[in-house]
């Protein structure tokens, strides 16, 4: 650990982002805030992949994996928002602790 930026600095930034994302997923009631936490977690994983591409022994494979992560995040956000809109129409709430019915 020095002041000069190396692999470790990027990994620490991603660890902090990961922890903040976990905190958001655990503590928030609103389903859309939970989705924001998940996006933070995915971004932190991507930073790790690309940092290892740059500094480690992983050639461009890491960047390709990061592209797939971004694609999956887009699909996941679209599906989750569709589900959230449907839940809001049915139950008139998006708080995850109040959505406890499987059927009306």
């Amino acid at each position, binding site marked *: 650990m020095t002041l000069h930026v190396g692999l470790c600095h990027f990994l620490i*930034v991603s660890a902090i*982002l990961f922890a903040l*994302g976990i905190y*958001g997923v655990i503590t928030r009631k609103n389903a859309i805030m939970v989705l*924001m936490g998940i*996006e933070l977690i995915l971004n932190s994983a991507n930073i790790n992949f690309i940092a290892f591409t740059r*500094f480690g022994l992983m050639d461009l494979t890491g*960047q390709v994996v990061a592209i797939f992560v971004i694609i999956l995040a887009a699909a996941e956000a679209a599906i989750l928002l569709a589900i959230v809109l449907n839940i809001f129409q049915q139950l008139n709430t998006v708080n995850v602790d109040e959505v406890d019915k499987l059927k009306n």
Partner: protein
Amino acid sequence: MNFYDIAFYVFAAVTIVSAIGVVFSRSIVYAAFALLFTFFGVAAIYVLLAADFIAVTQILLYVGGILVLIVFGVMLTSRAYSVEIKRGVLQVVPAVIIVGVIAGTLIGIFTTTPWPISNMAPYQETARPIGALLMTQFVLPFELASVLLLVALIGAVIIARREKGGKAQQ
């Protein structure tokens, strides 16, 4: 401390401070706007890691796509200034303990592991080699991703529109 280091610290600070804003903001609208700055900060970190194509993809897809989706979700599902959203927080103390343990463990592992570090290659553009990799070594995941996006698109439309049509059919 050269220019690269200063740029890294600035963008890392922007990313982390706005991520803290996302997680601790009391208003969901402010959280969405803080998420915008987080995505831009992460894109800048990608640029510092010489991943130009991923950085542009990040801005186009996250800022242009996912964030717009999230803001739509916020507008369609909440009265933005209602009291209930502002205090929608539960289990703060256990969460702080768990998150502290996770972050401490991760940072400890990251700082103590002797990573095999290659000597850094000089910067070169990545769009062309990534395209070649996607068409050769990763062609199966690439096609699977395209099918998955199609399924997600159709599924999202069906799920979001089912309510009125489904009741009419029954």
